[in-house]
């Protein structure tokens, strides 16, 4: 069974996937009642409703799922994933250095 050479005509993007994109511009549609945005995903621009993220503004990164922005991506919180690793590293170093200082049990 080979997968890499299976040519599939189907879109393999999971439905539950929500993708972060940058808000390029905002306008009101549906007779001026609905806040809609043009959102940039890499090189592609798609339209998304901002009804679920009333605080979103131009330049924000929003997570878009089936045409609706569902969350504003928080850069400060994103940083934590990388700090988590650094913290672990520091703890490891601490443990290692403390072992070096420890008197030899033998």
């Amino acid at each position, binding site marked *: *069974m080979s*997968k890499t050479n*299976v040519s*599939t005509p*189907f*879109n*393999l*993007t*999971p*439905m*539950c*996937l*929500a993708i*972060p994109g*940058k808000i390029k511009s905002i306008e009101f549609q*549906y007779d001026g*009642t*609905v806040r809609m945005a043009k959102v940039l995903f890499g090189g592609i621009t*798609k339209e998304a*409703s901002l*009804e*679920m*993220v*009333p605080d979103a503004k131009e330049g924000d*990164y929003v*997570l878009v*799922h*089936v*045409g*609706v922005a*569902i*969350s504003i*991506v*928080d*850069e400060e*919180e*994103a*940083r*934590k*994933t*990388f700090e*988590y*690793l650094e913290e*672990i*590293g520091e703890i490891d170093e601490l443990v290692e250095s403390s072992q070096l200082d420890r008197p030899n049990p033998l």
Partner: protein
Amino acid sequence: MKYLSEFRDPEVVEHYLEELHKVATRPWTIMEICGGQTHSLVKNGLLNLLPKQITMVHGPGCPVCVTPLNLIDKAVYLAEEKGVILCSFGDMIRVPGSSRSLLEAKANGADVRILYSPLEAVKIAQEQPERQVVFFAVGFETTAPANALSVLHARRLGLTNYSILASHVLVPPAMEAVINDGEAQIQGFLAAGHVCTIMGLEEYEPIVQRYHIPMVVTGFEPVDLLQGILMTVKQLENGEAKLENQYSRVVKANGNPEARKVIEQVFEVSDREWRGIGNIPLSGWEVKASLAEFDANRKFSISIAKASECADCIAGQVLKGIKKPFECSQFGKGCTPITPLGAPMVSSEGACAAYYHFAEADAV
């Protein structure tokens, strides 16, 4: 913005893997609930890189996979017999019904359309007032706000030719069903990041307490998944059971209140049949009676006899984490993405399709 591509950084992935190898000392079985996470784990080859003590089992979080056969037959009936414009997401269109899929109905001349968003279906209804438009609205909590919003848009526009055929399912009751089923022996959960983006964390705390099971709300990128697994394994190794949030850049403790307001306006909780699993009490949403004119089930009073499932397909056991796709006698033989026997081979979130497309033969 920083921290977008960084979540795929091979160096960071390697650091997390190293840490996991250090931390994991005993065998642990962890279930990722969401099919999107299964897809990412398999596609990025992470299952082969995890310490051998860690077994990931794949959960029922594939909305297309758990949509009942009978509902697909109803959608086909609406498209063929009632002449509606039947719209849905690409995956849903390809799932086989008891006699054919919506895609086959389309090939036979029915007006079936693949859309990116339910809001596009409302636009079609607006542009073609002489036609009935039905959106086959499947999904977990993540997709419910968009589907609900389409109903509210249609109502505000005064449309009488738009309705949804809803098949909405909820994660927490399914988690409990999987735990109570017992056969998969789950010791920890990666909760679905995008479901929690909408619903928040609150409804998961009781499950963590009741079953003393660690749970980490997790994102979808390789680094997200490895951090989520690491946090879960640390809890397991320490004998803890806590609810933690790895995906805090997106998931807030109280979720998205605006989205929940929209859901509450349109849907109410109901019992729901899950394909391959059976009926789970209070595990779904259906359109409120007060919005019956937007509910295709009520509007078209469809009654279709229940057909039986394909006998060779073990989709139910795959969805409950009891079996892996390659344990099925039909996997890659009688059942492929081009000729699927069951829904998990169709949907990109289905475990069978993920293994078929991305898993290396030696890993399976």
